[in-house]
């Protein structure tokens, strides 16, 4: 990994003003997440109905006792912001890791196998599947189901046998086409429905389910980029040499292709951390985020939305937190991108 940023790149990075600001913002964020909860005087889960509320029952604003005021349920905003920082970071980084790993994996495989022979999907299977569909539409659901299973069985059998005998002919299906077609379908999917379905499937919205939901729905873009880069790297000489030498595919991918692809992937992931922070807050805003009373920035934003007239700090504080963190990561990503692939002036 250290090979990715050579000395020249590192110098370019540090000279970049934006990159420095980005690093600074991210560092502040991490420090706040680590140390903030320890500095705070109050418990993020305890409501204070006496001093946390005005006589009329509204939350109090920033004061010496509550540095950033109290929220809708009369809890300290500062300590919730700090705990929220921890959560946002953990979720964003973990989800990005998941998404990058899956996306890079898919992209590498797809790019490497692009144009390859692949397997054949027998026409018989396609015919059976179509008849299955028609049957279901005509109201014979069970018949349709049976035919569909049959189609699948035929396809799998043909794949096994095709190594020896060219049995049932049909259009080609290789890893690349298959995966990219899946990506196509995935990208045209309504994000909201998918998230709600996943949330329902997981049955509870905890930190880990949100992580996985975000990770599993975001790898598509990475896959496309990695595939493109893999395609360009694949044709380089040393890769051809490795293949000629008979090295197994996974070794070629890992030790030759991956380091060359890593640059854009890292830049992409930094930007993705930023968008994960945003995505989590959007999920909370739409009501499918982490359950209360856990403080997350997105949730604080959602709660503050109704009260922004009388208690604007409830909205402004998490909004700024999100804005600055995302900005920091974006600047960092920009800096990395410019360092790795400069546009000379």
């Amino acid at each position, binding site marked *: 990994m250290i090979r990715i940023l050579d000395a020249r790149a590192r110098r370019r990075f540090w000279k970049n*003003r934006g990159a420095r600001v980005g690093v600074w913002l991210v560092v502040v964020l991490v420090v706040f997440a680590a140390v903030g909860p320890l500095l705070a005087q109050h418990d993020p889960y305890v409501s204070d109905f006496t001093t946390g509320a005005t006589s009329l029952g509204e939350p109090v604003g920033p004061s010496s006792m509550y540095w950033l005021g109290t929220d809708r349920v009369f809890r300290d905003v500062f300590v919730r912001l700090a705990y929220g920082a921890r959560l946002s970071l953990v979720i964003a980084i973990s989800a990005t890791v998941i998404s990058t790993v899956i996306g890079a994996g898919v992209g590498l495989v797809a790019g490497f196998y692009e144009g390859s022979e692949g397997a054949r999907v027998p026409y018989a299977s396609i015919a059976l599947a179509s008849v299955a569909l028609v049957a*279901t539409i005509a109201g014979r659901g069970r018949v349709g189901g049976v035919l569909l299973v049959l189609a699948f069985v035929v396809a799998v059998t043909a794949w096994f046998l095709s190594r020896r005998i060219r049995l049932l002919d049909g259009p080609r299906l290789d890893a690349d086409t298959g995966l990219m077609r899946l990506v*196509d379908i995935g*990208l*045209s999917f309504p994000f909201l*429905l998918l998230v709600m379905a996943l949330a329902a499937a997981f049955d509870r919205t905890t930190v880990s389910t949100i992580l996985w939901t975000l990770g599993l729905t975001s790898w598509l873009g990475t896959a496309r980029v990695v595939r493109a880069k893999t395609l360009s790297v694949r044709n380089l000489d040393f890769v051809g040499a490795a293949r000629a030498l008979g090295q197994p595919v996974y070794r070629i991918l890992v030790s030759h292709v991956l380091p060359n692809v890593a640059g854009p992937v890292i830049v992409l992931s930094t930007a993705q951390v930023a968008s994960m922070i945003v995505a989590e807050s*959007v999920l909370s*805003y739409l009501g499918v985020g982490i359950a209360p009373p856990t403080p997350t920035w997105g949730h604080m*934003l959602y709660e503050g939305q109704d009260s922004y007239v009388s208690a604007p700090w409830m909205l402004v504080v998490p909004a700024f937190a999100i804005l600055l963190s995302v900005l920091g990561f*974006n600047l960092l990503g920009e800096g990395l991108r410019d360092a790795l692939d400069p546009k000379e002036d």
Partner: protein
Amino acid sequence: MRRMAWALFVVWATTTVTFFINNVLPSDPARMVAGAQARPKDVERIRQQLGLDRPVLEQYGRFMRRLVHFGPSQFTPKDPVHGTCANVWRLHFDLGKSYQQRRAVTTILGERLPRTLFLALAAVLIQTLLGVITGLIAAVKRNTAVDHLTVGGSLVGISAPTFIIGLALQFVLAHRLRLLPLDGFGDTNVQHVVCLILPALTLGIYGAAYYTRIVRDELITSIKQDHVRTARAKGLPMWRVWLKHALRNALVPLVTLIGLDLGALVGGAIVTETLFRWPGLGALSVSALLDRDGPVIMGTVIISSAAIVLANLVVDLSYALLDPRVRTSS
């Protein structure tokens, strides 16, 4: 042609998967229609009336049968078989009736789609103009304070989630300064345009930030290219060089993005539409999901995935047309 078949397949696949997900989600649309306090007997009756007590596959079959079919070219809304269809001569499209609104889904979609298109077009217009202009300025004055400010500003624009931008604009312009309406759609055409400003601006700022970066980068790359150097050497004034040569090259990737953005915005401006209560497809899909209004969910999913797929298709085809290199290889 194969591409079109594939596009159709994608839309079908998305629709089917959505249908089954919709049926898997735990909830009872009949209860949503009847109300939380309705007695079980009444809920059961409504469930039967809506056909929700049939097995899933049978419901799927009915849905697909009605989705596209042939029928008479003239019929009334009271027609028991074709009453909820939308038609192009003898080709009928039927998505059934909304559980909540008890109207044909095609009618509801027909009301909402133009409004979302309106918003999408306005947003794309704003983001293109804004993006190109600021990108141009940044590229011309690169490495000066103006450039840094623009790049920084665009990063902030990308960094802020749509609803933060929207809330901020709404609070300052509509609430504090009362220059624009808080939300809604308005009654007259003039009001429609006025109500359009805030949501379009929200989406536009976000997109413009993105475009600024791209335009700037593309311009900087193209200004160094040979034919542009030649133009400069020939003695053309700088502004002409910028506009005629550099910009033309920069716009190609932008066109791709514009197309894709339009497609995405048709189904995807959910948060903005909800925030500004713009009665378009995005807001409809959210409320349909929350009410478990199956027919409407299916309708919005079909349209939004069709829009994205169509946009992709158009962009791919135009790419092939615009860029001869791509054409020869495919």
